[in-house]
């Protein structure tokens, strides 16, 4: 647990000082929102509002891909990744520390993006803010857990910026299914649909457990 907290602390402090990851994620996700807004015909209609949850999650996934790539590329400077791998603990704790940091940084970018998104698409998200935060939190946990695992795999490959989306996107299908359906239900009815939340819970649990177990091999050179 102390190793998890140490890595979380280190990642948040380094990010707070540079702010390069969150700035890139935020800028990118806001650009995606604006591009969608201007590319949809007829301005904000019932039809565009119906597709809003899918668009929101596309923006979140693009932002996450940027952040996940960066989360391990900073560990290559001065071979810092080796310094982490030398820790005398099960390396699954290192995975959990990196996942927690990615989740927190992505969460900050998502909160701001959601506010802008609500304004641009004229959605009343304030009334369902807490339930939406739960759905976004669960969806992001699945995204960050499997994303952290594959970012660690991709970071040592020659084309890591391309490799990460290729490895990750197919595995995000259940996460996106659950997250988009739960978000759609919230926006349309204001109620939390249990079935997509269950899908998110099960996917998160599987991704977290499997990633925890295999991370030891991923860090091997």
């Amino acid at each position, binding site marked *: 647990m*102390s190793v998890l907290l140490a890595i979380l602390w280190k990642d948040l402090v380094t990010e707070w000082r540079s702010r390069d990851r969150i700035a890139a994620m935020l800028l990118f996700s806001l650009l995606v929102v604006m591009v969608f807004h201007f590319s949809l015909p007829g301005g904000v209609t019932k039809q565009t509002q119906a597709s809003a949850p899918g668009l929101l999650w596309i923006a979140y996934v693009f932002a996450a891909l940027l952040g996940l790539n960066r989360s391990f590329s900073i560990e290559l400077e001065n071979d810092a990744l*080796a310094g982490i791998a030398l*820790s005398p603990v099960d390396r699954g704790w290192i995975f959990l520390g990196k996942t927690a940091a990615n989740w927190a940084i992505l969460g900050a970018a998502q909160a701001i993006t959601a506010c802008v998104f609500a304004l641009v698409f004229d959605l009343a998200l304030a009334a369902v803010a807490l339930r939406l935060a739960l759905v976004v939190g669960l969806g992001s946990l699945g995204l960050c857990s499997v994303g952290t695992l594959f970012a660690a795999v991709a970071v040592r490959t020659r084309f890591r910026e391309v490799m990460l989306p290729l490895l990750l996107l197919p595995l995000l299908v259940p996460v996106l299914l659950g997250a988009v359906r739960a978000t759609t239900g919230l926006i349309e009815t204001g109620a939390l649909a249990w079935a997509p939340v269950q899908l998110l819970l099960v996917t998160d649990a599987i991704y977290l457990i499997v990633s925890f177990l295999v991370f030891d091999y991923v860090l091997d050179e």
Partner: protein
Amino acid sequence: MSGPALRASGLGKRFGRSVALDGVDLELPEGASLAVLGPNGAGKSTLLRLIAGLARPTSGSLLIAGTPAHHPAARARVGFIGHASLLYASLSARENLLFAARLQRVPEAAARVAGWLEAAGLARVGELPVSHFSRGMSQRLAIARGLVHDPSLLLLDEPFAGLDPRAASRLAAQLASLRAAGRTLLLVTHDPRRAAEQCDRAIVLAAGRVAYAGRGDQAGAEALERAVLAASDAA
């Protein structure tokens, strides 16, 4: 379990088709110091990273005090000072050491870190980001980082590279005091004279195999130098 500080039997490591190490046998008692020499690509750094538990052997066995090198308990015994500093440029010297101490689960980390900063002569600049440090200062901090958990086996990968003469002599003195304190040292270097100064035994690697094993002290310096030249010519 216990045993010699380090025992490698038939140790091999491949990266795809490329053979980095091939059947290396090695035994190092507690408190001994071993220099590993050889031309570029001979497998020196790979050997060090296998011992540190950063990679798994493809064949053979590797034990640290009787425990497989890849086991967390073995990693707790090892201090690693690599080519690179393992430091974060945006963190201060104190934060870097504190992070390393927490990773190593060092009790009373803050107090230990203060002691190591003092010992490295960096207490005055402890709050400065590492990005402001010279190569010599970074190297002193990297060594403190490798020692922060009081490891019994210290692995050093060309620690003298890029240091000015003053910083190099300071590092040499520090290594001598670590040997005097009974630590086991494994030093990768290109310099046979440095090996003779710092170590009591030496091996020369060539194409992943042990081409020479003998004394690393002044008495064996000539034979060692000849072995290094022969390995370089063969490469």
